[in-house]
């Protein structure tokens, strides 16, 4: 009996040491895993640093060759001529005009779709329509580019013959169509989060659905709706393939929407796709334009977040 319990004693002791050995391995695991995971999280920060650093270094190099004042106020962009000039205004102009056209399409249609989905549609209809609208957002932009170039441009030209084969109007419209789901979905989220008690209050006072929407729901959801517009603009500014394909590469400083214009993004594609050797001024101009584009979109995104935080109505 005694020897038996002694045996068991030993077994338990073995078990304990075995367990300790295991434990030290698992303790090492517990210590190492967070470090590995942290290094993954670091990649996102390194990406940001990488973007800002590469853009900044090469942009500074560019401004050593082309004065910063000439760059931001120059209306002539002739990177390939004997006497190259690097005014960015034609590109900024093209970017703004295409974004304005896009927002003229996406803004009204997006918000009307949001109103319908949030205020009028039954649950059943919304559950069918919303995913279908989101398909539109999932289509690659290159497909939209093809659509703008081979379908929308000929269509516009058949109505309005003055429009050139490459023009800013058609990609602007198509870009707007691309942005509709984004504005509709974000605005719908904002409007859906307005509590029903407020709507019911308006109905009880005898307001129609329309009056409730415009006088109660939209004011209450305004911060979210404005934020969705700003994000839409930011998306339009950064959009590349549609304008590259359908608007050509004319660097004219013009306000005529029937003509070809180049956006900042399209310029980057043109220069990077060409044979700009490293070290040439035109190569550095790539970074200066990209930096401008980056700052533009970053400001828009920060503004959107500020608006939706600052002016949010809490219920």
């Amino acid at each position, binding site marked *: 009996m005694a020897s038996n319990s002694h045996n068991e004693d030993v077994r338990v002791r073995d078990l304990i040491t075995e367990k300790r050995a295991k434990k030290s391995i698992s303790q090492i695991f*517990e210590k190492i895993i967070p470090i590995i*995971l942290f290094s993954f999280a670091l990649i*996102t920060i390194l990406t940001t640093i990488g973007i800002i650093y590469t853009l900044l270094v090469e942009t500074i190099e560019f401004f050593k060759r082309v004065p910063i004042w000439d760059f931001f106020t120059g209306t002539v962009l002739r990177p390939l001529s004997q006497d190259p000039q690097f005014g960015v205004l034609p590109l900024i102009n093209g970017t703004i005009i295409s974004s304005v056209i896009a927002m003229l399409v996406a803004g009204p249609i997006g918000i009307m*779709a949001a109103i319908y989905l949030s205020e009028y549609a039954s649950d059943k209809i919304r559950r069918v329509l919303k995913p279908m609208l989101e398909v539109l957002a999932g289509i*690659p932009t290159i497909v939209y580019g*093809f659509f703008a170039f081979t379908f929308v441009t000929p269509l516009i030209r058949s109505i309005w013959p003055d429009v050139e084969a490459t023009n800013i109007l058609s990609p602007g419209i198509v870009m707007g169509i691309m942005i509709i789901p984004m504005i509709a979905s974000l605005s719908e989220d904002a409007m859906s989060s307005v509590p029903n008690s407020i709507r019911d209050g308006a109905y009880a006072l005898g307001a129609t659905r329309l009056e409730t929407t415009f006088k109660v729901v939209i004011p209450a959801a305004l911060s979210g709706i404005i934020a969705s517009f700003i994000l839409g603009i930011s998306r339009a500014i950064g959009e*590349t393939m549609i304008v590259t*394909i359908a608007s050509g590469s004319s660097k004219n400083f013009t306000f005529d929407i029937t003509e070809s214009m180049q956006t900042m993004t399209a310029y980057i594609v043109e220069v990077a796709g060409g044979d700009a050797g490293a070290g040439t001024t035109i190569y550095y101009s790539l970074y200066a334009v*990209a930096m401008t584009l980056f700052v533009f979109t970053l400001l828009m995104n920060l503004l959107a977040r500020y608006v939706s935080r600052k002016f949010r109505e809490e219920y």
Partner: protein
Amino acid sequence: MKLMDPSKMQARMHRRIYQNNILKYIFLLATLFGLVVLATLIIRVLNDGLGWIDFNFLTGRLSNDAERAGIMGAILGTFWLMVVVAPVTLIVGIGTAIFLELYLKKGKAQSFIQTNISNLAGVPSIVYGILGLTIFVRLMDMGNIVLAGGLTLSLLVLPIIIVAAQEAIRAVPSFLTEASYGMGATKWQTIKNIILPAALPGMLTGAILALSRAIGETAPLTVIGIPALIIPFPSGITDKFTALPMQIYYWTLDSSLVAEYANLAAATIVVLLLLLFILNSTAIFIRNKFQQRY
């Protein structure tokens, strides 16, 4: 005592209800507008491209002769890109999400990384192209190979999968993790055995959506410099390559010179959209099939 004239009110009432009904249909039309465009786009692409898709087109080499051109090289290029993007985004994305949600304490550092990720999500894809060109292609001297393109696209879609994985982790109910801790499990054991299995469907859905975004991206690849020339089929991640969207891009650009190139572009779009459709259906399937509600 009457303060209101009922007949006037009645008249106004009619107008208000009428307005409401009219605008309701205008709003509906606006919602349908996007769908009409979508339908037009798909019909147009099918109409132009479907007739050009045959065995030769899918398995053939690129050629200047429209009748003989094939997209096998582009299909393989897209495939090898996925081979790079899928594991990189999955591991880094889920790892980052776990770190942010489960290890990092709420505070300045956490909100800094979170803000940084949402800012990255808003950076135009072409800027990632410039990052890839500078870091991977030039600085690391990879050249325009699959690996350089794949890593660039991975950085681009990383925010998507991180956010999706974070949401999936947050959706795991606390009673599961607390039960695990109560049984004496360590933190990593809990993550590995409880949280990851429960959050996996949501993570995979996000990963597939990120992957389908990466497949359709063109702008970063144009910046990295994918040749329009006829090159051998890529057979690994260190080969030069072309991808489906790049092929669509070049054929669309040249369609003003050779009309048939527009058909080739449309046919390639059909292949690309089909691929995206399959990926997205898989994502929806996974979400519906495996996602548990607690």
